[in-house]
Structures are given as C-alpha cells and as structure tokens.
C-alpha cells in the first residue's frame, strides 16, 4: 500500500490552532490516523497529552468524533462503543488513542481484557515513553537510563516489551509503527481496519519536551530510533510475524547505527554512564533476537500449517 503525497487530500484531522507543543509527535500521529481512516474513525481518548491537544471546550481541534474517558478505561469504553455500533448497525472504526501510561500501566488490564475477548477495535498506543501530560514521569515504557521527574538518575528498569506481550496475546493483529514512517503506519492502519476483532498498533512517538531535544528534530529522532535498532517495526498477522521494510536492513546488526547517535540528541539521557550504554545495547540485541526468531519460527509454522 503506497501513499501518493501529491494526491492525498488536504483534510486536517487535527485542525490548526490545537494545544500540542511545537514538534508534537502525537499531533503528527493523529494526522496520519486521519489520512488512513478518514471519517470512519471514532476516537476514544484516555487522559494524556491527546486529551489536552484538543484544546478548550467548546472548541476542539480534532476532526474525529471523540469520547474522552478516564485514564484506565480506553479499551473497555471502546469495546462498549463498538458493541453499540454493531447492535445499531452503525458503520465506524472504533480507535483507542492512548499514551504509553494509559496503555501499559493503568490501562493495561483493560487492554489485555479487550484483546482476550477479541473486541472489534483498533487500539493505538502512542508511545512517548513517559507520562508527558503530567510533566514527564517514568512509565513502564520509559527506556532504561532515561531521566524523568521520578527517575532523576535514570530509570533502573528496561522498557517493558509491550509489542512482544501483545503478540503473546495471540490476537489477530499486532504492529509497531513510528511517526517517522507515515507510509508504513498508514498502511498498517488500513490493514488493521480491514480485520475483524482486536488490533493493536504501537506507535513510537519521540516527544521533544519530555526527551529534551529541539522541537524540529521529532522526525529525526524517531528515524534514529529505527536506524539504531532501538525501535523495531514489525507486523504480526494471522499468526505470522514479519519485520517491516523500514526495519529489515537492521536485522543485520552491522547495519545498525550506534545507539549513541540516538542517545546524544536527547538530554534525558544526559546521565547515562558507559555501563548503562552497554546494558542498553545488550537489550537491543536481545530484543532483535526475539523478533527475528519469531519471524523465522512463525513463518515456518505458517508453512507447515498450510
């Protein structure tokens, strides 16, 4: 599925004059969501920057019909909405747009429940690797070594491997994406919308405010995450996992850029010691191995099943 920028219509799904910070990756992501799903998408937004970006009542910068909801209840609210639309025969794609905190921490039981029930929704985790809306506190998706206002000396635990955990839920569709690769993200969204049941997309969203890089570098940093192998783009569908094209080159470890290039742009890593860097690199390798192994094995499995 490729995107012809020339032909893409000029619809603004986040209308100018919104409340996002300059360089905001969440606003960027919402733009792609609109490009992919158009007027069919109904948003469910648990607390987070995306609740604020909307701006102040009675105005709203989102062009999507939106249900704001308490922090822990993104997935379950969406499950209810989807059930209602089904009962009433209404045509819509129910999309949860939740931060890493809303997804991987407080909302995780709700998410996991919807996955297990196979509720007919698309759940998108917009991962800026901390609680940004409350001022940059650590989440379970904050990477090892990163400063936040609750980990002054750098986080001591690794980023929870949420995509892997969601794959382990063995749901119809799981994918990762990045704001730097809109074509890839949009294609995944369109694919997800065509599948019945539970779909999970994990969008990597570097935040200039929380990661402490200059606002113009959002795309640059996001790209580096992929190029250094810190973030792996893949798609898991019908039981088969496949590393996505933008990430495929980095299956070869030699091709990955040094993590330091990614780190050094971000002041949140300012206290990272050398041994921390080694630890981070080790984790990157391990994580790659998991996903490459899964690609190998699931595609082999698929063949034997066919």
């Amino acid at each position, binding site marked *: 599925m490729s995107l012809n*920028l*020339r032909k893409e219509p*000029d619809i*603004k*799904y*986040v*209308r*100018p*004059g*919104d*409340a*996002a910070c*300059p*360089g*905001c*990756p969440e*606003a*960027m992501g919402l*733009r792609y969501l609109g490009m992919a799903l158009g007027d069919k998408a109904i948003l469910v937004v648990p607390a987070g920057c995306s609740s604020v970006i*909307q*701006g*102040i*009542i*009675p*105005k*709203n*910068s*989102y*062009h999507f019909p939106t249900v704001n909801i308490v922090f822990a209840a993104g997935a379950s609210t969406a499950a209810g909405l989807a059930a209602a639309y089904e009962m009433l025969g209404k045509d819509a794609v129910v999309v949860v747009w939740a931060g890493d905190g809303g997804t991987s921490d407080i909302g995780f039981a709700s998410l996991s429940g919807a996955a297990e029930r196979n509720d007919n929704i698309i759940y998108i985790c917009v991962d800026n690797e901390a609680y940004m809306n409350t001022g940059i506190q650590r989440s379970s998706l904050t990477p090892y070594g990163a400063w936040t206002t609750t980990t002054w000396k750098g986080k001591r635990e690794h980023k929870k491997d949420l995509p892997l955990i969601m794959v382990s839920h063995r749901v119809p569709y799981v994918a990762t994406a990045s704001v730097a690769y*809109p074509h890839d993200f949009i294609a995944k969204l369109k694919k997800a919308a065509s599948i019945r049941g539970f779909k999970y997309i994990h969008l990597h969203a570097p935040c*200039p405010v929380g990661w402490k890089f*200059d*606002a*113009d*570098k*959002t*795309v*640059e940093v996001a790209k580096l995450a992929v190029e250094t192998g810190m973030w792996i783009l893949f798609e898991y569908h019908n039981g088969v996992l496949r590393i996505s094209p933008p990430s495929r080159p980095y299956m070869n470890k030699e091709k990955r850029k040094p993590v330091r290039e990614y780190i050094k742009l971000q002041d949140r890593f300012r206290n990272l010691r050398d041994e921390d860097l080694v630890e981070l690199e080790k984790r990157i390798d391990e994580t790659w191995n998991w996903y490459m192994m899964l690609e190998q094995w699931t595609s082999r499995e698929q063949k034997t099943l066919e």
Partner: protein
Amino acid sequence: MSDLIKIKDNILPLSVTSEAAMGKTGSWRTFKPVIDYSKCINCYLCWLYCPFSVISKSEEGVVIDYEYCKGCGVCANVCPVKAIAFVPER
C-alpha cells in the same frame, strides 16, 4: 458561556471541531519557517510531517499558514533540499 454547547436547554461537556481551539497559535512562534520556492522540489514531505497541518498544497506548491504555524521547525528539518529557512521572529 454563550458558546457552550446546549441541547434542549442542557449545558453539555461537548465541543465541536474547529480551528483555533487554543487560539491563533502563530503567536507561539519565536522562529519562522520560510520557504525558498526556488529550491523547493514539491516533494511534500514538509506537508506530510507538519504536526499541525498548517502546510497546504496549492497550485504554486506548499504554503504555510502563519496564523497557526507554531514554528517548531519540523518542516525545515525534513526538507530534503533544505528549501525551508528557519529565521528568528524578531
């Protein structure tokens, strides 16, 4: 208050899609992106990546809406031919 959304005389916690939900965010800008059309190759990457949809496609190419452009510089950063300069507002 008179703007709040009322249905059957109830004041509801609703909002409607609209520009300027936070006002004219052009005022936030301290730097300003300026397109050098002579360099521009119409690749539309700036259009694609602008987080705030303030770049439009027109007959003449890409156009920035300065009323709302927050001056983040993403467009300048992604432009493959460095056709966008980023100049201080004052």
